[in-house]
């Protein structure tokens, strides 16, 4: 009998213990210890001194399910990811119960139901350790410090010409904060619908026209040639025409339809809209 079982025997079983029953508070549970199902599985593998390449699915599955059960009994919210893994484990376990023609021991091979899980565990372990290595470095603001006093010469001078330093996230986040500040009705068409909107299409056409001098209608609908896409693109083009942002050409009755920017760079003067 192993040490765990001995512990269990010594403690005995308390069938009706409740969560808040301090009398039996013999253990502290670190439920925040596991950063996900893979983390929990790695812990169980280590605990049982299993070879990660040849894990005993039965043992791991039982202990994993016990843990989930415990979380539920403690009224902790069990994240969906943990339940998905539980289902995966049970599936692997049931597949392992099926008779195998030529059983090969301690080999993870193609037909092994555990193969995918083991590969994921090994990969995860790699990044978990990489994270620990990164985290153990001397960090700026924690072990390493830079000068915090301000050079008087530089504090007065503000620079308007230099390169810009701003991240995409800051841009989007600025927009998000703005939206939270103002009433929703101003933004009826901003909360993007599932589908491709006219605004999306306008943006796409404008960005295409930044790259090239002329665009064909077919270019705009080539990727996703759906009825809806064509209509939306068409409406977007009409809107752009109305705004006098593009000019449209056709080189024959059934020929390709071409679009060119109506204004070049920053020129503001008006150009006639041509539809030939």
């Amino acid at each position, binding site marked *: 009998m192993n040490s765990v079982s001995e512990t269990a025997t010594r403690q005995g079983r308390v069938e009706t213990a409740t969560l808040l029953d301090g009398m039996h508070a*013999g253990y502290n*549970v*670190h439920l925040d210890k596991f950063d996900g199902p893979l983390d929990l599985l790695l812990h169980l593998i280590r605990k049982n001194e299993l070879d990660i390449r040849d894990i005993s699915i039965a043992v791991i599955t039982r202990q994993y399910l016990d843990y989930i059960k415990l979380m539920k009994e403690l009224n902790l919210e069990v994240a969906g990811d943990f339940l998905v893994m539980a289902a995966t484990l049970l599936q692997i376990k049931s597949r392992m119960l099926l008779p195998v023609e030529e059983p090969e021991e301690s080999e993870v091979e193609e037909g092994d139901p555990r193969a995918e899980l083991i590969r994921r565990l090994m990969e995860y372990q790699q990044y978990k350790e990489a994270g620990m290595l990164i985290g153990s470095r001397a960090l700026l603001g924690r072990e390493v410090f*830079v000068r*915090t*006093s301000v050079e008087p010469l530089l504090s007065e001078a503000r620079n308007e010409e230099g390169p*810009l330093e701003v991240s995409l996230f800051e841009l989007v986040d600025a927009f998000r904060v703005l939206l939270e500040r103002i009433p929703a009705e101003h933004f009826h068409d901003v909360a993007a619908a599932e589908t491709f909107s006219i605004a999306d299409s306008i943006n796409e056409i404008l*960005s295409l026209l930044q790259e090239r001098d002329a665009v064909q209608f077919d270019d705009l609908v080539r990727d996703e040639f759906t009825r809806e896409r064509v209509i939306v693109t068409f409406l977007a083009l009409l809107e752009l025409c109305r705004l006098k*942002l593009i000019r449209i050409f056709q080189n024959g009755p059934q020929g390709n339809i071409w679009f060119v920017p109506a204004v070049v760079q*920053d020129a503001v003067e008006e150009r006639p809209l041509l539809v030939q």
Partner: protein
Amino acid sequence: MSLPAIIESIIFAAESAVSLDRLCDMLSEFERDDIRVALAELAGSHEGRNGGVHLAEVAGGWQFRTRPEFHQYVVRHVKTKASRFSQSSLETLAIVAYRQPITRAEVEHLRGVDCGGVLKSLLEKRLVRILGKKDIPGRPLIYGTSKEFLEVFGLKDLKSLPTLREIQSLADVPQFERQEELPLGQDEGVSEEDSLSLFEE
């Protein structure tokens, strides 16, 4: 670790000049006299190496400073320094990016403040450009983002702009809730012996 080096690290990282008294408070394991000697030694060694920086005695204590004769070089840095965006520039740029083509009046309606100055500076930085004039009374200018805008944000095209929903969805899903240590009595549910190994640590 020598005492002068310890003092150097403290003075370097400090926000303002550090006095001898303050040093003695902090380094209570050292004698005041030793600290004074080490400080003088430190100042002397920096004076002696003829670098661009020295340990200067200023009002209230000691501080590392660039030597005045190097100031002509130090100020050059300002010209190539990356400038950070103000919140109003960022907000205006975001509105133009997401709502283009858009007029100034529409931007101002959304922000609730005058945006003429901000728009002008975004035009000067070539992040925003004039696309044309809107066909409504008054024929206001309409704005959109430029090629430079895409370059600054490293975007291939406007389609690559993250949508608001994509950013919001990052926070939507509740995280696996972190729990404080819970005292646990033995529980009927955890009947199998092996599962106890979970609680051992």
